[in-house]
């Protein structure tokens, strides 16, 4: 879910930057990296706190049912490990998707491709990521992966349209 948030936030940033005009690839790249890092730290801390509370509650319930202290047992250690693992995954997911979407801007800053090409390639990367995430979600829940892939792609396009519309109003 954090990967979805990360890619959509980057999409909003890129679209907003291009619609307002006078785009500098360095600014887009810098803002995008800042956004990716912020989302990653937010994902880590959010997941860590929520998972810690949930697992702590679960352990307390097990302790109550067993009438024994289960601190430092394999179950306790496994639950602590899963909290950290989930937090790391929640941090890595938005960082990876955001960085992938920003790769064309790295090429634009290095003058390998033009700014318009960077924008186009970035949009393509974002749509591919959105479609892949939807496709994967569809497979997990046992529904049509293609349908879910299209739904997530359409959500991305709607966000693009909304951001473009808002940016156009604000820059008038």
């Amino acid at each position, binding site marked *: 879910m954090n990967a979805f948030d990360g890619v959509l936030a980057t999409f909003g940033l890129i679209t907003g930057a291009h619609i307002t005009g006078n785009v500098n690839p360095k600014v887009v790249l810098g803002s995008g990296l800042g956004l990716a890092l912020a989302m990653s730290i937010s994902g880590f801390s959010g997941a860590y706190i929520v998972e810690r509370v949930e697992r702590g509650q679960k352990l307390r319930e*097990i302790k109550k*049912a*067993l009438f*024994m202290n289960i601190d430092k047992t*394999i*179950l306790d250690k496994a639950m602590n490990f899963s909290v950290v693992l989930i937090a790391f995954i929640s941090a890595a997911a938005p960082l990876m998707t955001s960085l992938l979407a920003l790769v064309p801007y790295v090429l634009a800053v290095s003058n390998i491709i033009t700014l318009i090409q960077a924008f186009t390639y970035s949009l393509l990367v974002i749509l591919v990521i959105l479609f892949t995430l939807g496709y994967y979600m569809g497979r997990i829940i046992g529904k049509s992966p293609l349908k879910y892939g299209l739904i997530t792609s359409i959500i991305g396009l709607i966000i693009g349209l909304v951001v473009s519309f808002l940016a156009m109003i604000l820059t008038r």
Partner: protein
Amino acid sequence: MNVSIRRLVLDVLKPREVTIVDISKALCDVNGVEEVNVVVTEVDVKTETIRLTIKGSNICYDDMAKVLTNYSCAIRSIDEIDVYKHKLVRA
């Protein structure tokens, strides 16, 4: 002469998150244990009651208890025990 345990039947309460496969393998890994049999006798929302039958030439109860505690299992009772007397074998 030495007295050793060769069969132990325990009534154990375990969390549902811990599988009987893991518990039985860990118990069978202890020195002196040759065979472990687990039967789930009761299933609750958060816990399961299991009947553990441990067989071996020289079972150490403290080691069994340590393994079970490590796997968040509570020993409720020792239901059966077989002990035998034998001569100490010196290497």
